[in-house]
């Protein structure tokens, strides 16, 4: 039995979804168009103008590309290691016992507390941002992969054994797909943390990127630029969320029926 809801949003729902952002922008416009100049609260028109000029001179794309590149590389490194360690510790008791306690301890360190330390160690170049992002996304992926594997229905694994699945075939047929929904929860969390850490790292130590743009604009009191960078972060965040849910829809088709 299929429910209507499952066949995608209806038109009025799409409208409803965008109603609040639209109202906010209108309210923003009304609040800032009262005539007298407002340096600390720029009007949407000013922000839009800034976006257009920065698009024209290529800065906006360049900064976005720099930030996105850091985010992706950091995510791949940190997330990749987190996923692999989660698999290894979920599957083998020895490494679980040897590593899990330490990792759970490290998890409690806020990444942002490490910024100063990392700057001293790695300078303010590309490396430090990538390392920070990698460190931040590592834990959600590690923990969710680990728990995904630990929580696989033992009955299914036993069934697999009766049918002669072992080693690689047990892994690809039962363990990996069984852990996948939890892994994807980790991916979603990681993507959120990825942007968060990157903003912080770029604001403190960078020579390019959206965070750098926001920081320099603040120093020059170019508030329209600050707001623009915040909007770009929001859009990038939304974009990664869209990617994550597309992945879920594709990989977890069987859950959606």
């Amino acid at each position, binding site marked *: 039995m299929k429910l209507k809801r499952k066949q995608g949003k209806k038109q009025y729902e799409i409208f409803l979804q965008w109603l609040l952002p639209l109202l906010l922008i209108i309210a923003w416009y009304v609040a800032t168009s009262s005539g007298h100049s407002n340096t600390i609260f720029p009007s949407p028109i000013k922000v839009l103008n800034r976006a257009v000029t920065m698009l024209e001179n290529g800065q906006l794309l360049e900064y976005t590309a720099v930030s996105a590149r850091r985010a992706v590389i950091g995510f791949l490194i940190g997330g990749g290691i987190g996923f692999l360690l989660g698999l290894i510790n979920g599957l083998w008791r020895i490494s679980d016992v040897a590593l899990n306690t330490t990792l759970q301890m490290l998890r409690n360190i806020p990444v942002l507390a490490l910024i100063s330390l990392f700057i001293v160690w790695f300078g303010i170049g590309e490396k430090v941002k990538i390392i920070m992002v990698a460190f931040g996304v590592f834990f959600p992926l590690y923990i969710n992969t680990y728990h995904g594997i630990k929580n696989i229905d033992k009955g299914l694994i036993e069934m*697999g054994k009766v049918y002669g699945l072992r080693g690689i075939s047990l892994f690809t047929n039962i363990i990996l797909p*069984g852990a996948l929904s939890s892994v994807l929860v980790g991916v979603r969390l990681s993507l959120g943390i990825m942007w968060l850490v990157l903003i912080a790292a770029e604001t403190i130590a960078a020579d390019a990127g959206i965070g750098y743009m926001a920081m320099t604009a603040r120093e020059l009191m170019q508030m329209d630029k600050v707001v623009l960078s915040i909007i770009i972060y929001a859009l990038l965040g939304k974009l990664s969320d869209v990617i994550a849910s597309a992945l879920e829809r594709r990989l977890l*088709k069987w859950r959606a029926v």
Partner: protein
Amino acid sequence: MSENANGYKIELKNVKKRFGQCEVLEDVSLTIESGEFVAIVGHSGCGKSTLLRMIAGLDVPTEGTILVNEKEVTGVNSQVRFLFQEARLLPWKSVIANVIIGTPDKNEATAAQSLERVGLINKKHEWPKVLSGGQKQRVSLARALAGRPNVLLLDEPLGALDAFTRLDMQELIEKLWLEQGFTGILVTHDVSEAVKLANRVILMEDKEITLDMKISLPRPRQKDNDSNYFEHYILDKIMKLDEKAAEVRREDYAI
């Protein structure tokens, strides 16, 4: 009609099983002939499932040996299939992909034939999630029989189904057993299910076998006076044993 070349003979010799301090089976010896369908009935927790699991190679006996087709059981064997109480289908695989797991060469055509035999070929591209409990268990049966096993072990596979679905499934299992001639061992709480399916009913009470009885009814079986006679006889026996156990307990209290 029960003798069939396809089924393996199964022998248990002085099998004991303990989990830690807890003894589940004490000294069970039993021979199940090739192609026989045996039902094991008894209260929960009297070691019936453990017995099946040991024959399947999923558990190891503490003492004694189990022979399947004259060979000692040392692990899982592709000729011995197990039907669990839950269907245990992989939710991320389509129905047909689940049945393919049961085929020896991961062959889709063989899997499709097996699904055809349980009457679910029209569901082959569905996800297990959309199936009813009875349909899931039928897919599970198709998976178990796809490799034409010589032994099928059934651990209360119909326990969670409603009464009508149960009767359908019993008929299906009987039909497939007659066609394929595997040796079947069914663990169940349901005496009429045992009488419907088995050539031989074994009653296990308190870690040992207390009744071993041939059911000589013609097949395919129907519920009639003859089957009622067997059912009553077995139930009577269970009740008497219960009374005896209660007496023993009363005596214990008296001391």
